[in-house]
């Protein structure tokens, strides 16, 4: 990478204004219908065009990391549900993976299968909700969101009967899961999985060839592949720019190697590609689910000798990461031999995916900023931690 590349994509492009009209400073502030929660963008406008856009964070900074350093390892598990409150099971899995790496804990076969099944179900309901919110920001006030939430309710029913809570599952433990997935749960999961392809087809018929969606999203918020890599973008946003990097295939964590599934890639890196990548990822998750539900083995759902409560890992550190629906979610734990980690760090995919928000929005109209922001798919609990 040449020297010039160092500066080229380091700063967002600036537009020189020919001084005709005055610039209007607007705060699309913490309380704004389009910001998925309490996120603020200070936008400088020249009429309708965006000249500068400065994101402001911290309105939901709930101090996960400081609490993580005071409470024990196990007591931190319910807090991980509240990080990305759409996908509590993948958060649990990432934290469990990090601690298992820290203490060198093995996970039995059945627990791995249960983890894959629940993670892929979480991915499907997250992508469906994201597309629902994205189209709502494009003006389809609520109809696609109703479809997405109708499917999400079915999946949440399964989570509730299995883990006891709809959104805050607190299900994984270091070395397996808290409760076994009985045959009834597996049949419920099979019923959901058989119903989902019809839902995705219905969703695609409603949205994919819709002119308004195409007009509002094709060519908008384009993200170049090398800027995406350098800015640490991960998840569907990165793959929509054409970079083939899916941690399920790179790190080979869990038992993803046993399932045959493809990683969808986009070409232009615009909003329509991000929408398509999420729809195709839902279909790939379905394939994984079918294979996992078919050959889930019997056996212990947790390693009987696993130490769960009040254990003291040897001094050392570990960084465990998984492919969360929003990108690479990682937990970095430094232990000094105590019952709670010395340093508890969360690598938030949504927070880092917002690094290039300004690059994508400059020069577009204000209405498109809302759609570009929706396509990044962030959750404030994880952004501000």
């Amino acid at each position, binding site marked *: 990478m040449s020297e010039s590349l160092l500066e080229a994509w380091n700063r967002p492009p600036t537009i020189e204004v020919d001084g005709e009209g005055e610039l209007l400073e607007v705060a699309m502030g913490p309380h704004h219908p389009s910001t998925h929660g309490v996120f603020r963008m200070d936008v400088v406008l020249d009429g309708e065009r965006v000249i500068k856009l400065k994101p402001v964070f911290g309105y939901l900074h709930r101090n996960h990391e400081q609490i993580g350093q005071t409470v024990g390892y196990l007591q931190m598990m319910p807090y991980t549900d509240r990080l990305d409150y759409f996908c509590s099971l993948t958060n649990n899995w990432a934290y469990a993976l990090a601690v298992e790496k820290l203490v060198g804990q093995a996970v039995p076969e059945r627990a791995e299968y249960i983890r894959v099944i629940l993670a892929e179900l979480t991915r499907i309901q997250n992508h469906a909700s994201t597309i629902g919110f994205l189209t709502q920001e494009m003006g389809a006030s609520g109809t696609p969101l109703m479809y997405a939430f109708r499917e999400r309710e079915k999946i949440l029913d399964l989570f509730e009967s299995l883990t006891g809570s709809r959104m805050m599952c607190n299900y994984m433990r270091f070395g397996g899961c808290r409760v076994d997935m009985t045959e009834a749960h597996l049949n419920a999961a099979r019923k959901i999985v058989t119903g989902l392809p019809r839902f995705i087809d219905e969703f695609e018929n409603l949205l994919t060839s819709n002119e308004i969606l195409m007009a509002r999203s094709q060519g908008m918020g384009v993200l170049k592949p090398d800027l995406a890599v350098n*800015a640490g973008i991960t998840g569907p946003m990165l793959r929509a720019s054409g970079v083939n990097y899916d941690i399920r295939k790179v790190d080979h964590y869990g038992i993803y190697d046993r399932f045959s599934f493809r990683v969808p890639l986009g070409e232009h890196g615009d909003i329509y590609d991000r929408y398509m990548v999420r729809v195709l990822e839902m279909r790939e998750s379905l394939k994984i689910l079918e294979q996992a539900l078919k050959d889930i083995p019997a056996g212990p759902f947790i390693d009987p000798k696993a130490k769960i409560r009040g254990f003291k890992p040897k001094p050392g550190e570990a960084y465990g990461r998984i492919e969360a629906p929003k990108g690479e979610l990682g937990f970095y734990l430094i232990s000094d031999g105590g019952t709670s980690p010395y340093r508890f760090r969360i690598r938030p995919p949504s927070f880092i995916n917002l690094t290039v928000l300004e690059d994508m929005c400059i020069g577009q109209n204000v209405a498109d900023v809302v759609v570009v922001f929706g396509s990044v798919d962030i959750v404030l609990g994880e952004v501000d931690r």
Partner: protein
Amino acid sequence: MKTVEEIKTAIETAVSGAQLEIVPNGSPSAEHSLLVDAAHAFAAAKFLRDDAELKLDFLSNVTGVDWLDKETTEKVKVTRPVEKEVNGVKTMVDETVEETKKTVTPGYLEAVYHLYSMAKKHGPVILRMRTGNRSDKVELPSLTPIWRAAEFQEREVFDLFGIIFTGHPDLRRILMWDGFKDYPMRRDYVDPDDYEYEPTAHDDVLKRAQAHLAATTTEAAQ
């Protein structure tokens, strides 16, 4: 992928004068990290990104860690000449005396970078940088010009730990409000007391509740 030792030698050859040190990692994950001195950190990082064989083009995670001053007391045998009465004659006899020696190793702030390669699909290489001490020498070179991913994360480390990243394009507080003065994630930070109420109060919440009770009763007494 190269092991940490090979990467260490590779950096030393590429960046002349860089003092590197391997920090062992006690956990079974055995991801040892490379401690780089602040002066050559920028050049070493740029080498790691541009090297054809490593190509670490993806900075996944930037973490701030606060290591407090450590007081280590150990028993040490010291031989010291002592005045002794030996059968009526004062002679200097050196005698081994057991003493507890308190050594205070100064604390420091640390920035940990996790590097991966999206091109070659390998990693992680963990890079560590340490500041002089925890009070005045807290500058570290910013790696944002090399990896744009570090921009927000370094601002967060500055906001919560107080490490000043020189060369960062826009170093402001990111999570706390701008008027906030102290660095909340440091180990010695005491958060303000605002009537945290707990029906079954314990340890510091109980102490604060008793302090409030005492304050209100004395107020009532006046």
